[in-house]
């Protein structure tokens, strides 16, 4: 195929000439007399951009005339539309045609409609105002009997649709889920997917229908529903764990080739479907051992099946590997996945190599040894001609950086940085280099030079935190004062050298950093006097390329240096120049300097040397103004009142504002509400109140439900707490390691008599310096280099560490020899060079015995899966137990189970309860559960019946901690011995933290049989929001007041079925099904109230027109109205 295209292309100019002659198939195609054809040809014949512009403008103006002419037929319009699309694609504005595109979709026949819809979907975006005009057309077409029209409407809805108009088409699209044609069902599912993306609340009530789509007999429909599931699971994986089995089964069928051959792609069964399922499984199995266990088999199968050597199988493999590493780990699978990654990395195909590197980057934190295995490949990729491969390699190296390899890795990163021009890349890379330099810098010189490179390349695009952090680091210093001074001195010297260079332009940010450092720390210099530094700064100040912001930094630096310079002409000159500057800011600074300069003593005390980190002692009481104040008061001025005092007085004069959140006690005094613009429509009772209460705006912020995202610390790295036993830890400069590596290499060469090319040797040397310390922290620790080295440039820590470059070097050497571990050393480096992973591991395990507590934290993440604690705070223990006494063991057989439950409940007749339902059983026991909806909580009762004739020991029931649920065990539940054929009840009170739709509470029962054989059974129950809704009994008056005080409201119209068309019956349904309290019914309006436990009130105002029930919810909680609305819709539809 490609050959043909190539040929046609080279023949293109010729073809246009041939058109008249009509030769060749392509020419025939081009020869029809279409306006588009001539337009395209016209454009192709042109040579300059300018000519093209002229031609298109001509074309557009003629199109404009045509489309607005009343004589234009729809057929002509369709043709115009195609040309408009073409012009728009070339980058010209054709917005005058948008309205005609909508018209065409509305009025045209099928062919014209199709083009109209296409034009609409290409021209408009979903918030375009014209889109509203399309809604009617879509509604009409959705109801059409013509399949193609329905398809077109669904296609356009799935691409762009105004969010606020979703209710208009939603019922129609829901109907389409039952359509007999699979193409319609599929498009309907995708349209709902689109709705879910732009307005998740609106489609909440059809989640059950999605499940139906998932089970659709047509593969296409099922595959389409996976898009929705992937999305929903990404948002909340815990709600869909029960579907894991289904997804696994589907994947098994797909992998096993059970789908129609149509869905094969290059003889691989439905790869898109497989990948979608793998992604879903990865999300479901994350950190969840039980769910993960369900999918081990099918993942293994997928890995095994994907053997064919085609791109698409690699795509599946890659996704598989990703999933295997996402879910709860299983060593066999991890091993296989690691092998797959190897296949990718070693592949000669560049795309696969890239993905291999990507996978390595992804798994490197879990398994650093994997990088060791592929170190030579990684080295090769570092010099790859394709910058993308290089960048991915650097990303990988960035993840494995430690104190030993930092210089090499940062050097490689800087090399890449110098070559790249794209801003996004520079910003990203500069940030990483700065981070690494700060964390792992081996010495002062290296650190400053690296940061110089960062500042001069990153310049003005980098994140402002980088220079800020750098300056703070310099100012705050570390624990060793001499070390700090050396670093500062080095910085000062290096900047002076940089400034001496002629004709070099530095980014403004770099100049700002320099001027601050020079201003603060020039006093450390021996040779240069402050005056000389000032002269250099002055030179910069007079430079036109320096921005005025930087100039203020420079003046500040000069000001700091002036007290140190005894008398400087430069300062005089500077004052002279800038006091007449046009820039007010500069002028201000210059005047400040001038006045300070006249009073040297004051200046010295104001600008002390090296005190940037200390707070100035300021006379906060402004006592020197006392005389002035006294004078003012004596002349009759009012005494000063602070702001808050004024505020309070102002408030006390008005009605008192209540800033406390409203509880459930409603006293009518002290109540101030929010003015509701629509409050008057609420009926006479309420609008009376709004007049007196609603006039003032509450000025308190609604902070409820807002997460605190920003801390005072900003994004600073967490401080490491260091333990005292590391005080003997010593840093090792890079060279000493390199020496050792060199030795190791020579030794190896001698012993093995290997003749290697010089180049290869260089690479191996590079490898050894890159991968040193990877997966072998233990070795490093053994030699006395604790982790403290790596955080040399981190923020100040409380414990002093004795560090000095010179001594550390010597002492390290001695520690090397004193440990007389040389042979061991060699072994390690040889391993690194030889890429013998197995031996590496042995070393690793050998040393693990010697690990101290510090290095334990460095262990791979895999080992860090901690068990969740099962204890939950018993907050509600006492308030629910007093009413409810669990019955002591009631003997009953399994058959009598339900009667048992009811007899049990006789004690608590005041509470409504659900029927007992068996949740799990085996030959020995059976567990059933029911809910008791108490006034203050939901009480879950699990009754465990011992069916066997034997006594059970240490029977225990535990509930897994679940997000959002606070589960509290009622006392007296766990009885160590359970007699034969008896029943025990376990009770838990459940509270929720956030409103939700559906949740699952699961747990297990464990017990011992007589023969000490222990068993465990798991179960789960579904909880719905309704379990936590209680009626709220308030008066109409209170309702009115509360209504105005709630900010969160949701309105929705619901269609009522005929059976409940009257308001009272509809409300009755709501009362019965949702436990809402009916406060009052006024004509065709109704007021209801309920509360979500523990005490979130929600109010509902209903109004009936014809068969539509207008629901209007208000609550203090932002999410509750949405959830309740969903429940209401369900109830109203269901009945």
């Amino acid at each position, binding site marked *: 195929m490609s050959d*043909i295209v190539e040929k*046609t292309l080279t023949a293109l100019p010729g073809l246009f000439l041939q058109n008249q002659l009509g030769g060749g198939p392509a020419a025939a195609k081009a020869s029809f007399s279409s306006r588009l054809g001539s337009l395209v040809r016209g454009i192709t014949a042109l040579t300059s951009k300018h000519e093209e512009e002229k031609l298109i403008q001509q074309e557009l103006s003629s199109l404009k005339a045509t489309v607005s002419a009343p004589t234009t037929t729809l057929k002509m319009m369709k043709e115009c539309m195609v040309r408009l699309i073409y012009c728009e694609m070339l980058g010209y504005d054709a917005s005058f045609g948008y309205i005609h595109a909508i018209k065409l979709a509305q009025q045209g026949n099928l062919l014209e409609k199709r083009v109209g819809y296409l034009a609409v979907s290409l021209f408009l975006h979903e918030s375009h105002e014209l889109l509203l005009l399309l809604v009617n057309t879509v509604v009409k077409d959705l109801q059409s009997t013509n399949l193609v029209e329905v398809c077109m409407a669904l296609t356009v809805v799935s691409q762009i649709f105004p969010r606020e108009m979703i209710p208009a088409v939603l019922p129609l699209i829901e109907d389409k889920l039952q359509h007999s044609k699979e193409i319609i069902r599929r498009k309907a599912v995708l349209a709902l997917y689109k709705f879910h993306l732009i307005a998740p609340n609106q489609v909440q009530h059809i989640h059950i229908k999605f499940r139906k789509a998932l089970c659709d007999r047509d593969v296409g429909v099922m595959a389409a529903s996976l898009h929705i599931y992937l999305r929903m699971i990404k948002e909340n994986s815990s709600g869909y764990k029960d579907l894991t089995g289904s997804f696994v089964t589907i994947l098994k069928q797909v992998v096993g080739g059970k789908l129609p051959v*149509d869905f094969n792609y290059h003889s691989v069964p439905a790869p898109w479907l497989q990948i979608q399922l793998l992604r879903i499984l990865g999300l479901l199995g994350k950190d969840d051992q039980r769910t993960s266990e369900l999918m081990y088999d099918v993942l293994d199968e997928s890995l095994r099946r994907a053997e064919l050597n085609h791109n698409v199988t690699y795509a599946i493999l890659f996704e598989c590997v990703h999933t295997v590493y996402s879910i709860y780990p299983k060593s066999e699978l991890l091993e296989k996945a690691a092998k797959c990654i190897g296949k990718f990395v070693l592949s000669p195909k560049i*795309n696969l*190599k890239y993905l291999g590197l990507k996978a390595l980057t992804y798994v490197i934190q879990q398994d650093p040894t994997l990088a060791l295995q592929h170190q030579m490949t990684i080295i090769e990729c570092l010099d790859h001609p394709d910058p993308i491969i290089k960048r991915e390699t650097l990303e990988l190296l960035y993840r494995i950086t430690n104190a030993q390899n930092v210089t090499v890795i940062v050097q490689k990163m800087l090399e890449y940085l110098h070559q790249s021009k794209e801003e*996004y890349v520079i910003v990203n890379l500069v940030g990483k280099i700065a981070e690494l330099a700060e964390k792992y810098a081996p010495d002062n010189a290296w650190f400053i030079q690296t940061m110089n490179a960062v500042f001069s390349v990153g310049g003005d695009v980098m994140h402002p935190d980088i220079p800020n952090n750098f300056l703070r680091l310099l100012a705050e210093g570390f624990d060793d004062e001499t070390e700090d001074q050396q670093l500062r001195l080095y910085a000062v010297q290096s900047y002076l050298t940089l400034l001496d260079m002629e004709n070099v332009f530095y980014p403004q940010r770099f100049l700002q950093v320099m001027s601050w450092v020079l201003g603060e720390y020039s006093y450390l210099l021996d040779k240069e006097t402050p005056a000389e530094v000032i002269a250099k700064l002055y030179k910069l100040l007079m430079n036109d390329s320096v921005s005025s912001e930087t100039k203020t930094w420079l003046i500040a630096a000069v000001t700091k240096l002036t007290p140190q310079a005894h008398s400087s002409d430069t300062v005089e000159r500077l004052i002279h120049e800038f006091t007449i500057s046009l820039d007010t800011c500069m002028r201000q600074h210059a005047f400040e300097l001038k006045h300070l300069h006249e009073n040297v003593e004051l200046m010295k005390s104001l600008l002390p040397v090296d005190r940037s980190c200390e707070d100035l002692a300021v006379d906060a009481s402004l006592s020197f103004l006392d005389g002035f104040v006294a004078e003012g008061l004596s002349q009759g001025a009012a005494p000063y009142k602070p702001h808050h005092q004024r505020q309070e007085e102002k408030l006390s004069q008005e009605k008192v504002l209540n800033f406390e959140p409203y509880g459930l006690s409603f006293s009518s005094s002290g109540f101030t509400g929010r003015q509701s613009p629509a409050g008057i429509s609420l009926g006479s009772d309420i609008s009376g109140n709004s007049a007196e209460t609603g006039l003032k705006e509450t000025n308190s912020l609604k902070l409820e439900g807002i997460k605190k995202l920003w801390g005072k610390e900003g994004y600073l790295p967490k401080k490491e707490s260091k333990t005292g036993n590391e005080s003997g830890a010593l840093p090792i400069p890079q060279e000493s390691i390199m020496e050792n590596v060199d030795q190791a290499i020579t030794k190896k060469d001698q012993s093995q008599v290997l003749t290697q090319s010089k180049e290869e040797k260089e690479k191996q040397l590079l490898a050894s310096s890159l991968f040193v310390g990877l997966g072998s922290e233990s070795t490093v620790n053994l030699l006395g280099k604790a982790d403290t080295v790596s955080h040399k440039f981190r923020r100040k820590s409380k414990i002093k560490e004795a560090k000095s470059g010179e001594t550390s070097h010597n002492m390290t050497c001695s520690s090397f020899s004193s440990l007389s571990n040389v042979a061991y050393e060699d072994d390690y480096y040889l391993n690194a060079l030889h890429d013998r992973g197995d031996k590496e591991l042995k070393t690793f395990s050998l040393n693990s015995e010697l690990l101290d507590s510090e290095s334990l934290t460095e262990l791979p993440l895999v080992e860090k899966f901690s068990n969740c604690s099962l204890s939950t705070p018993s907050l509600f223990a006492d308030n629910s137990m007093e009413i409810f006494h669990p019955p002591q063991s009631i003997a009953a057989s399994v058959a009598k189970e339900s009667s048992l439950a009811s007899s049990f409940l006789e004690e608590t007749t005041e509470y409504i309860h659900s029927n007992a339902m068996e949740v799990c059983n085996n030959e020995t026991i059976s567990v059933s559960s029911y809910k008791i909806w108490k006034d203050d909580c939901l009480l879950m009762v699990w009754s465990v019946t011992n069916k066997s004739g034997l006594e059970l020991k240490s029977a225990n029931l535990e509930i897994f901690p679940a997000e959002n649920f606070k589960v509290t065990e009622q006392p007296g539940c766990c009885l160590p011995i359970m007699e034969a054929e008896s029943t025990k009840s376990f009770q838990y009170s459940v509270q929720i933290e956030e409103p939700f739709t559906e949740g699952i509470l699961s747990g297990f029962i464990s017990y011992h049989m007589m023969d000490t054989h222990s068993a465990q059974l798991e179960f789960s129950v579904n909880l719905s929001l309704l379990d936590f809704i209680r009626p709220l009994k308030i008066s109409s008056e209170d309702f009115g007041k509360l209504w105005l005080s709630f900010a969160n409201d949701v309105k929705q119209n619901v269609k009522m079925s005929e059976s409940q068309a009257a308001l009272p019956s509809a409300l009755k349904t709501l009362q019965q099904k949702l436990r809402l309290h009916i406060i009052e019914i006024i004509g065709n309006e109704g007021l209801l109230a309920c509360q979500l436990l523990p005490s979130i009130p929600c109010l509902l105002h209903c109004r009936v027109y014809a068969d539509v029930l207008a629901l209007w919810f208000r609550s203090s909680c932002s999410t509750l109205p949405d959830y309740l609305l969903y429940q209401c819709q369900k109830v109203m539809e269901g009945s």
Partner: protein
Amino acid sequence: MQFMLLFSRQGKLRLQKWYVPLSDKEKKKITRELVQTVLARKPKMCSFLEWRDLKIVYKRYASLYFCCAIEDQDNELITLEIIHRYVELLDKYFGSVCELDIIFNFEKAYFILDEFLLGGEVQETSKKNVLKAIEQADLLQEKTEYHSKSFIGFKKAY
């Protein structure tokens, strides 16, 4: 998928489909930058690009570049296969497709794309089903257009 672009070796845009709402100005900027970047790449280089915070997957078929933008966690290889499947569909529909087919019948290319990808997600992966849907719509068109000469000179799929 965020968007799909088709452009020629000369940098001329042949098809654009945006699945995320962007202003015209942004679209133009992205297109310009991306066309430049992709055209500058050498043939032996990798088909994936990291561009701003997006992942670009592109492939050249003869004189045309097909270029898709995906999100970071999406699978690059399968996106390549999406491109390939689209080319297969075009090929089958036009009968050994060439750039001219797409230039002169770009609305057809859009129709096929809409049957294959919808709202940025793969809608139908069966080649047969996609073409069936297109043909159905085409057939209806032919009936309505029967009396007049169509300017669209598409070749029927064999």
